[in-house]
């Protein structure tokens, strides 16, 4: 009997009915992780997990997460477990503290069985730039397609059925894009809803901790555990938390949903459009009002460059601590300054250095107004435009990506990509801190694709409610990529 491709409630019931023990679950997940052929893992916590599962507090048996194996993206701090952000510079870094998400998961009885691969320092969307190389899409048996990123390993592990939940981070669309490529539910909450304490910062004003599940209920349930104020993260919200599973089945009558013309017009894949339209029909049949609304194309086109300038600028500052002086793989030199220069020159890949150069360039006095300040103004305008839509609508709904997972192209220069609205628009939710969820819509040539829903800040309950209906309409939940 295999459990790791089941959903949380099924596994939980099996534990409660004594059909399986947490130890057996953890052993199953570790065995699957060891046999992973998608390059999903930075580190498999076999020893640590087996130790923790033996120390599980049986009084927590009724928690849904009790004994559930999970994986954690490798930019999230885990005490005494290596955390590398898939960068050579941090290949030997072992944190001295747990991130808040890890603490919360473990308090519920979840067991971390592995740390997952990612684009180096979360800067990338392909899953090809980590120091261990390309992470593959489990749905593609030819190993020629990306899983997307930057939460690549987490997406690969859960869609391959290694674990039922996987933690990631989302700065532009780093959870929600891979979710589309892997038939997953990928969620990031309102900025400030889940503590970022312990998340390696890339661009803090865009950064979110989020996660993958294989169905909407599990996604809503996980927020119950992870949401809430954390004094260690000053930006975490005091807004009261809710039971996010409570409104999943609420009727959709009167719910207003907007499709953004500029995004949908940019999608040409007929299969994707077809499935998307079908899901809209289903929403309408259930009482939702779905309208097509305009947002100024100039603003939609500005999302990617704006995101790029601000995130690169913030990233230079956030990664300035990686200098080999205090931790990380130091490369010696005659002076401290030489140590710093040598470490950073050798520790980062070319792509990361490109970002730092662009980020620093954007913030220099002579360029600041033209780039950094202008990007911040742009961000404000973009967020205002989406807020205007949210004044009349509960949610915005569009395809999460214009295509299925693209072919691996290691020469692809993601830094100077041509602007493509439907490819990059989801970063609007990071700019405004809007909660956002991607969920499966269909398959094309056996490769999945998804849709994305976003709502006003702190309207997660409504978001899960609509998502639940879309899931009912497609019937696509608990999908696991089959092994050969």
């Amino acid at each position, binding site marked *: 009997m295999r459990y790791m491709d089941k959903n949380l409630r099924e596994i939980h019931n099996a534990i409660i009915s004594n059909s399986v023990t947490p130890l057996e679950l953890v052993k199953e997940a570790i065995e699957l992780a060891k046999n992973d052929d998608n390059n999903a893992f930075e580190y498999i916590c076999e020893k640590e997990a087996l130790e923790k599962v033996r120390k599980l507090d049986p009084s927590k048996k009724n928690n849904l997460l009790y004994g559930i194996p999970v994986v954690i993206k490798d*930019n*999230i*701090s885990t005490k005494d477990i290596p*955390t590398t*952000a898939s960068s050579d510079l*941090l290949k030997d*870094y072992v*944190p*001295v*503290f747990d*991130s808040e998400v890890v603490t919360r998961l473990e308090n519920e009885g979840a067991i971390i069985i592995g740390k997952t691969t990612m684009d180096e320092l979360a800067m990338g969307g392909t899953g090809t730039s980590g120091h261990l190389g390309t992470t593959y899409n489990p749905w593609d048996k030819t190993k020629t397609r990306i899983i997307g990123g930057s939460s690549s390993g987490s997406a690969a592990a859960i869609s391959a059925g290694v674990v039922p939940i996987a933690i990631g981070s989302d700065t532009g669309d780093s959870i929600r894009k891979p979710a589309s490529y892997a038939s997953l539910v990928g969620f990031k909450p309102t900025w400030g809803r889940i503590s*970022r*304490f*312990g*998340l*390696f*910062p890339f*661009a*803090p*004003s865009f950064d979110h901790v989020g996660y993958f599940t294989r169905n909407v209920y599990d996604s809503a349930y996980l927020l119950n555990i992870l949401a809430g104020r954390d*004094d*260690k*993260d*000053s*930006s975490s919200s005091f807004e009261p938390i809710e039971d996010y599973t409570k409104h999943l089945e609420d009727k959709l009558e009167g719910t207003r949903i907007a499709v953004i013309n500029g995004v949908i017009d940019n999608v040409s894949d007929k299969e994707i459009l077809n499935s998307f339209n079908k899901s809209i029909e289903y929403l309408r049949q259930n009482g939702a009002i779905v309208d097509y609304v305009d947002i100024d194309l100039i603003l939609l086109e500005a999302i990617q460059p704006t995101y790029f300038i601000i995130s690169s*600028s*913030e990233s*230079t*500052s956030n*990664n*300035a*601590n*990686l*200098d080999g*002086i*205090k*931790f990380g793989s130091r490369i010696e030199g005659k*002076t*401290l*300054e030489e*140590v*710093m220069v040598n470490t950073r020159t050798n520790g980062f890949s070319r792509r990361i250095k490109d970002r730092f150069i662009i980020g*620093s360039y954007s*913030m*220099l*006095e002579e360029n*600041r107004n033209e780039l*950094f300040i202008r990007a911040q103004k742009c961000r404000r305008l973009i967020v205002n435009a989406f807020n205007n839509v949210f004044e009349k609508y509960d949610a915005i709904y569009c395809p999460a990506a214009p295509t299925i997972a693209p072919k691996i192209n290691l020469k692809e220069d993601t830094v100077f990509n041509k602007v493509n609205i439907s490819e990059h628009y989801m970063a609007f939710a990071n700019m405004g801190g809007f909660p956002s969820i991607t969920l499966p819509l269909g398959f094309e040539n056996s490769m999945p694709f998804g849709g994305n829903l976003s709502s006003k800040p702190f309207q997660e309950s409504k978001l899960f409610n609509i998502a639940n209906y879309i899931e009912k309409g497609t019937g696509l939940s608990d999908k696991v990529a089959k092994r050969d």
Partner: protein
Amino acid sequence: MELRAIIGLEIHVEMNTKSKMFSDAPVSFGQLPNTQVSAFDMSFPGTMPTVNKQAVINAIRVSNALNMTIDNVLMFDRKNYFYSDLPKGYQITQYFRPIGRNGCLTFNSGDENITINIERLHLEEDTCKQFHVDDFSYLDFNRAGIPVIEIVTKPEFKSGQEVRKFVELIRSIVVFLDVSHGKMEEGNIRVDLNVSLEDDNKRWSKVEIKNLNSLSNIEKAINYEVNRQKDLVIKGKTIGRETRRYDETNDRTVMLRIKTDSVDYRYFTDPNIPPIKLSDEFIKNAIDTSPELAHVKQKKYKTLGLSDYDANLITNSKETCAYFEKGLETGCSPKTLANWINIQVQKVLKLKCISINEFSISAKELGELILLVEEHKINNSQAKSVFNEAVETGNSVIDVINKNKTNHILDENEILDLIKEIINSNQNLVNDYKNGKEKVVGYIVGLVMSKTQRKADPSLTNKLTVVELRRR
């Protein structure tokens, strides 16, 4: 044409809060290197800043003491630069919105009252301490993250003496407000200054002098630098834009580096610290509960009857004020207590090279000793010998008094009985007194003193003798 010096200051005050500016690591000085450190201070990835409330309260109090406008939104920015003593690769500071703006401070220098405008006061975190021994560089992160207040004045000082007086006053303010230990020799207060010359037509380049850590060095460095610059101007040479340091051994300033275009710090608001609204109530409360400044205490002490001189001496140090106020709780005379502190106590402190906190006689003991004199239980000279013996032996005042039976002093009735006995045994004394021989009084007092081994209070005895003689 007359060349005038213009000087502006940046004063860094290291706070004495319990924990650091953005982490919960303790602030404690003189500990083993790298023992007062949290993961945040080492900038381990994923750590986040949390603002120290007491540090904010301190900044509000100092801003208020400097008559500044206090911002009601607290915001922090990142100053980005690479240096090995800067763990995060940026310093969290307040660039765009300093907590205090547009203040001024009036003080006395020479015989003049001078007012200096203060541009800004902001909160920031200290860097780590870096030092080099042989071929090795060492970093001590204990200092990293200690809360710092930076005070920036307008360039309005004209002399080293003015600057010295000003820094003295700032030091007194931050010490009295419990914001800092204020020990310049330990780097709690560090001063950078800009010195330049001007005449009616021209202003010469600014020269920066960094890291001055004593009041006398500040004055000496300025005096030297002003003369050096004047000399250059007179000789027709140019003054370079440079950074210099003060070389104490040779009493001169030495060039550290030539200033190129200013470093671009790529400031931006720290996204991990959302703006914090400071309510009017919070600000008001911080100010209302603020400890008293030296000049407030001075005023208060004068209303208690202290002379300007005594009040000034006591308010020179916060510890002395505390000692004085503690002593007052016994109910002794403020004036007498101030006298004792400023003369007897200070003499001992100077001799033993200790601070009043280390003084063996507590304020309560001293107050009670004075009270014994005031209640005529002992006399002044006895009190002094008790004091001296207590200082020398380290015993408590009470122990000394008990041991010497000093407190077996005659009360009014006992003295009167003695006086009566003397007069009764020699009736001539009364007659002589009535015939105008005032000396009789002294004679009787002398007899009482010798009969009591000087345990009677002379002035009381004197008074009682006169009354008794007149009564007869």
